[in-house]
């Protein structure tokens, strides 16, 4: 096998790995993806390193080997894209698709994988945060304020995300906006649990999937990746706290 052929396999495996990371997969899934693709292409997977900000792979055959790396940014959670990429990798392994065909398939997935409309996501997030507040003991008025505030917060988050703003800046800004609106709305409506509305409206920012993946990665034997995820989760919570703190000051609940 020529060096150039190894490179094409390496690059398509890395592209799949990056998409899976960006969609919320854990380290073990990405390792299985790399191993399956390599095996189906008739090459040996000599090494695969899955990091938080980059992924590298080493493939070999007939005495030739190649190492390639890609950067990974824009971590998120996209369940349907994640499942679609896995299905494509399975299909590629079963039918022996070429790297070029897999690349075309990935292009199609990125273009065609359905997403819920932004307005629906905002409403769903509002309902989820309001329900969360109810679980904490918020009264009905606080739950209504939480619903509206977190829905607005999610809409703003989507807009800021589209403009490519730093993720931690988005977290702080949305936490501030949602907490302020939630607290203000609950207070104006006469709620007895203003602080729960203020806090509950920021729950859309809680990084539940990365937090779970961090622990799963450590358990699965990827402590570096797990640690990086945990630090990222911690930083998100710090920025959420900053937003809540400023909102409290604006509402006169903090000096």
């Amino acid at each position: 096998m020529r060096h150039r052929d190894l490179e094409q396999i390496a690059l398509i495996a890395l592209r799949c790995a990056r998409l899976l990371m960006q969609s919320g997969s854990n380290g073990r899934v990405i390792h299985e993806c790399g191993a399956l693709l390599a095996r189906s292409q008739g090459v040996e997977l000599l090494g695969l390193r899955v990091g938080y900000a980059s992924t590298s792979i080493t493939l070999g055959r007939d005495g030739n080997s190649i190492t390639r790396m890609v950067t990974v940014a824009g971590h998120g959670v996209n369940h349907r894209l994640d499942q679609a990429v896995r299905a494509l990798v399975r299909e590629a392994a079963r039918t022996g698709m070429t790297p070029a065909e897999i690349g075309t398939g990935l292009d199609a997935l990125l273009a065609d994988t359905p997403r819920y409309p932004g307005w629906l996501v905002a409403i769903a997030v509002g309902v989820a945060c309001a329900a969360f507040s109810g679980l904490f003991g918020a009264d009905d008025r606080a739950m209504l304020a939480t619903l509206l505030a977190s829905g607005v917060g999610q809409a703003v988050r989507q807009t800021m995300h589209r403009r490519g703003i730093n993720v931690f800046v988005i977290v702080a800004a949305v936490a501030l906006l949602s907490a302020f609106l939630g607290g203000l709305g609950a207070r104006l409506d006469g709620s007895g649990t203003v602080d729960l509305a203020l806090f509950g409206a920021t729950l859309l920012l809680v990084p539940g999937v990365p937090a779970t993946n961090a622990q799963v990665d450590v358990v699965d034997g990827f402590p570096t990746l797990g640690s990086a995820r945990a630090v990222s989760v911690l930083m998100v919570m710090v920025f959420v706290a900053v937003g809540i703190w400023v909102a409290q000051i604006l509402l006169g609940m903090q000096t």
Partner: protein
Amino acid sequence: MTPLLAHALHQAALAALAAAGFGVLFNAAPRALVFCAAGGALALALRTLLQDNGWSLEAASFVAAVVVTLLAVGVVRRWLGSGATAVAVAGCIPMVPGAFFARALLGLFALTAPNATGVDQTLAVTVVAMLRVVFTLGGIGAGIAISLTVLRRREF
């Protein structure tokens, strides 16, 4: 209906809404949303019943996470394939101890405010709340991770 059961159903209904809402945020398929809601409802109902029977929040959260993950990976996988893992995570998200986190956060702000009063009591309440957050999150994460390891399946 007993007050205990009514409380558990109330918590389960709210948890179902929360889990399904987060499922939409995670772009889960419509069919998966039903399982997310069911997972959230089961997790909170079980945790509430255990707590009402004297279990600690941390232990009850751990057991609920184990049960939901085992059911997701062992049963729901028939319909959703490898997507069942995401259902387990979404189902466990409503168990995040947000009330204690809020209490801890507000306590930290109060402690660092100028002219803070009642520092000793605030410190104790804050530390306890923070520890409960850490232990409960650890219990949920461990419950999911251990169950996934025990019922290890190929992801492809």
